[in-house]
């Protein structure tokens, strides 16, 4: 029973495309073991300057104690995680609210595409870090600046994918709308949005990945409560490499989970013709 639920969880998170068979579970274990082995070797050759998996595990358990501890002088890891996720959620949410409509507008019309696209192409490659001081100048507040940074960086993938989706609606689908005289609203709700949804979700999946990556940098710069600040303050400044490793593992797993949520949504809303 317990084994079954583990299987389904692993199934959903890691190998959602295929059913978990004993074989794929075995491959998963081999992959993890390989990673552990390489890690162990690195620890050994750095004379445990980089802590071994075992040493890290001890620290991990320590960090995991009282995750929801919420004292003024110490916040548990759960509180930090929630704080980071909240920032990502706000920045990414605001970004989505803006990028989807603009993407739809951009994709549905050649003129808007030609007007908006150059702006996107110039702003998109800018490093997330460059936006931070700008946010600071605008808001005079570092947590808001890191949300601003996430907001800007999570705009582009959604915007570009949404625009791509809308501009690639097959002529066959458009013909149905024309042939049966669909109203503008019916065209949008029954043809444009359903066709574009998987593309939007791909965009969101990439955006949330970027946002999650950027939050660590943002929190390192802005301080406050969160995983990024945890890496910097308790890990690096606190002299505990193990804590840095613990944070990396937590950040990685949470990032993977966010990715899988959007991947599952994307699959749910893709249709065979």
């Amino acid at each position, binding site marked *: 029973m317990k084994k079954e639920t583990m299987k389904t969880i692993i199934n959903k998170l890691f190998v959602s495309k295929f059913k978990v068979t004993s074989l794929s579970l075995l491959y998963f274990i081999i992959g993890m073991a390989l990673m552990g082995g390489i890690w162990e070797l690195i620890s050994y050759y750095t004379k445990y300057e980089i802590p071994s998996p075992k040493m890290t595990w001890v620290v991990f358990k320590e960090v995991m104690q009282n995750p929801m501890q919420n004292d003024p002088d110490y916040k548990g890891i759960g509180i930090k995680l929630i704080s980071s996720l909240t920032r990502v959620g706000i920045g990414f949410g605001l970004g989505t609210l803006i990028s989807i409509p603009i993407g739809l507008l951009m994709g549905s019309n050649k003129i808007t595409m030609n007007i908006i696209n150059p702006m996107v192409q110039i702003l998109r490659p800018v490093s997330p870090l460059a936006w931070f001081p700008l946010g600071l100048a605008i808001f005079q507040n570092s947590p808001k600046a890191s949300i601003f940074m996430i907001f800007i960086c999570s705009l582009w993938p959604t915007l570009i994918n949404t625009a791509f989706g809308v501009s690639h609606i097959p002529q066959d689908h458009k013909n149905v709308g024309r042939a049966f005289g*669909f109203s503008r609203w019916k065209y949008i709700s029954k043809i444009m949005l359903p066709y574009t949804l998987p593309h939007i979700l791909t965009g969101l999946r990439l955006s949330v990945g970027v946002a999650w990556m950027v939050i660590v940098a943002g929190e390192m710069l802005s301080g406050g409560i969160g995983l990024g600040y945890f890496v910097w303050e308790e890990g690096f400044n606190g002299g505990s490499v193990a804590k840095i490793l613990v944070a990396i593992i937590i950040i990685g797993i949470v990032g993977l989970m966010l990715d899988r949520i959007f991947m599952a949504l994307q699959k749910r809303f893709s249709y065979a013709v």
Partner: protein
Amino acid sequence: MSTATNFATAPVNEIVMNESAAVVKPIYNATTSIEVNNVTVSFKTPAGKYTAVKNISLNIKKGEIVSLIGHSGCGKSTLMNTISGMVKPTEGKVFSSGVLVTKPGPDRGIVFQNYSLLPWLSVYRNIYEAVDSAIKDKSASEKKKLVEKNLKMVKLWDHKDKLPGQLSGGMKQRVAIARAFAINPSILLLDEPFGALDALTKSSMHIELLKLWNLDNREKTIVMVTHDIEEAIFLSDRVVVMNNGPAATIKEIVDVPLERPRNKKEIVHDPEYRTIHDKLLNLLIEKFSIEDITD
């Protein structure tokens, strides 16, 4: 020769070719369903102007089944799209029941080449959304009844909640036909409707189409694009043979005066069927044996 046959074989056409488009009036009477009047369609392409069909005139009577046949790329779909209103003629005009065609309308039901069902809508919703858009003066419950009636007609009521991706090719085509019938058009336009189906499914679809047409007292005009000679003869009253494009014209219109209802098995033994079949074959194909290959 081809321009001459255009007119010789279009019995009710009284249009003089040189008459300017502005003074052309439809020669509408109760029996004319579609009038294609000196239609030319050109497209702009990167390589310059491409004329798909040129100076085509054709009249189709109410309740008539007409096939457009020709080689790939001969512009038969383009010609049909001018009737549906999906393509605007560069020159000339098309009238549907005496009304100038400027865009698609509910008087003309279209069945597309590749079914064109919306993959995210159930079979039921696919038809309902079309009915809902095309028919303005009915209540929601009347529209639902229409959907039900038409889905039952093509025997797909049991599959109404399935998505198109879960259906076979033949079933998808039946949904597309039910969708076109559901808006109760006076004209049905079928663009290579059975091209993607296997021979057996195709055969039964022919019978089903004729049955639907019969149920409707043979009042619907049907225009069908095909490249299948047997299909064209079995279904049609007239077969319009097109020349190869570009600038395709009508090569000849062949009457099919075979009695209805037709029987798939028996019709092939009818001497008249054989004659028509050979005639169409001669019009469409130049080489019949390896001995005919000269180069």
